């Protein structure tokens, strides 16, 4: 039994030998938001690292954009975030009167959701404007404000979710087959009990 060629024949180095390359540090971090239905809110999806915003968007489409049906993807460089809890600080403030995106985290542990836009001079004013006018911002645990023109978003006709059958990568793509096959081994009542366990365990 042989492995694939890459895995069977890769050039090996002495594991005791020190690494030939010097440490190089990380690429820039971008936060990714995804929109799951047309005109719906943008939801925090996660982070990734990329050489620049254009590549960040391409890479985000092929990772976070493919985890579920998705209509748009947006990336924001971490240096373009200002966070009400001081975790992120905007590196270069934009000109006065800039439009800001406002995302809020309702309670600790929740994901950030983009809730609206405000116009303001500077991040502090944007934060105040958000609390005054964006739904839920006044009571949110944390607010993020982002100069709107620094967010990079897919175009309306960009393809994100694929056109081919994607059920192979989703749990629901297997449920019917699995159930049908189980009936060869278990009767209905045992199967129903097993499926209740499924729900408890979030399988």
């Amino acid at each position, binding site marked *: 039994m042989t492995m*694939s060629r890459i895995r069977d024949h890769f050039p090996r180095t002495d594991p005791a030998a020190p690494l030939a390359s010097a440490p190089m540090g990380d690429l820039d971090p971008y936060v990714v938001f995804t929109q799951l239905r047309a005109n719906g809110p943008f939801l925090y999806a996660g982070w*990734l*690292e990329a050489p620049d915003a254009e590549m960040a968007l391409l890479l985000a489409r092929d990772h976070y954009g493919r985890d579920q049906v998705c209509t748009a993807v947006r990336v924001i460089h971490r240096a373009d975030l200002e966070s009400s809890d001081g975790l992120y600080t905007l590196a270069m403030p934009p000109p006065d009167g800039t439009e800001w995106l406002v995302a809020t985290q309702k309670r600790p542990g929740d994901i950030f959701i983009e809730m609206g836009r405000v116009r303001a001079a500077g991040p502090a004013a944007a934060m105040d404007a958000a609390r005054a006018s964006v739904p839920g911002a006044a009571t949110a645990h944390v607010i993020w404000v982002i100069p709107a023109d620094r967010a990079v978003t897919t175009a309306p006709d960009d393809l994100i979710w694929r056109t081919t059958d994607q059920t192979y990568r989703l749990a629901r793509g297997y449920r019917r*087959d699995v159930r049908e*096959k189980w009936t060869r081994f278990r009767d209905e009542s045992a199967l129903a009990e097993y499926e209740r366990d499924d729900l408890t365990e979030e399988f």
Partner: protein
Amino acid sequence: MSGSANEGVVVDPMIREEDPQRLAEFEAKMARGDLIEADDWMPKAYRDAMLRMAEHHANSEIVGALPEGEWITRAPSLRRKLALTAKVQDEVGHGQMLYRVSQDLGKSRDDMLRDLITGKTKYHNCFNYPVPTWADIAMIQWLIDGAAIMNQKTLADGAYGPYVRTMKRINMEEAFHFRSGEDMVLTLMSGTPLQRGMCQEAFDRWWGPALMFFGPPDKPGAEHLPPMRWRMKTVKNDELRRRFVNRFAPAAIDLGLRIHVVEKDGHGSVIAKRPDERAVRDAATGDWGYTEPDWNEFFRVIRGHGPCNAERLALRRFSYEQGHWVQQAVLGRRAGLPPAA
């Protein structure tokens, strides 16, 4: 696939050097069930332990991509080929997200990758076992991913916000891994004698590592020690193992699989087996019994002497060294690209 459970999180006595007032507030938050965010005050021991846990988990994801990756080129149908590729890809994605959680606790991804391939940090034990047949792929996705979901579901009830959010997202994807594994096991056990035989042999190889997945038996009073008191872990190893066996032992038996106690050689091949007589349901408690896995083997593998430790690290190292020039070429490029010609 989760890697955090069997690391054995150790929190050193540095806690005593912390500001007592802040520590008391932190402990009170923990007791109330509040979540901690990256910028909240936390004892250094907590930050360090959380970093070790997230880093170990991230390492496990990207090393965990290797054993199953071996079979992508040999998957027996287009759908299975797609599914296995997507599954391994998900593991890399989970690793990427968990490295981010770790980076925010103070260590660069590059340093973490370098520490992994030079053996300074660890990853989950179960990836040090061989994957000699296609049926092993089915068994890993059914048993090991099943165990991972059971574990990660409890980790998603933890206290550290960034880790909790990542667990929730990961669990959503793991459901596909488990379901696809279950479908493969069901297909093989519904198939030809050759397929059922492959499946039984793979089950014999993976039942032990699956029991070990949740880590060694708990220390006495584990619930009062920092990992549980600080909700880095929320359920004891033995309790998770009990839940796992109660679900999977009867399922395996109904499928026609036999639960064996096995003896393995240094390459991870089964050289002797006998039926596990404890694998029956206790009428009084309702719990299924099992024979404890070989914990000596577990600690031997953790110390680096498992069947595939060297192989896994060598391939990860190849990947890092082969790809080094790519990251090097685009570091610090945010300023932009040359204009179109």
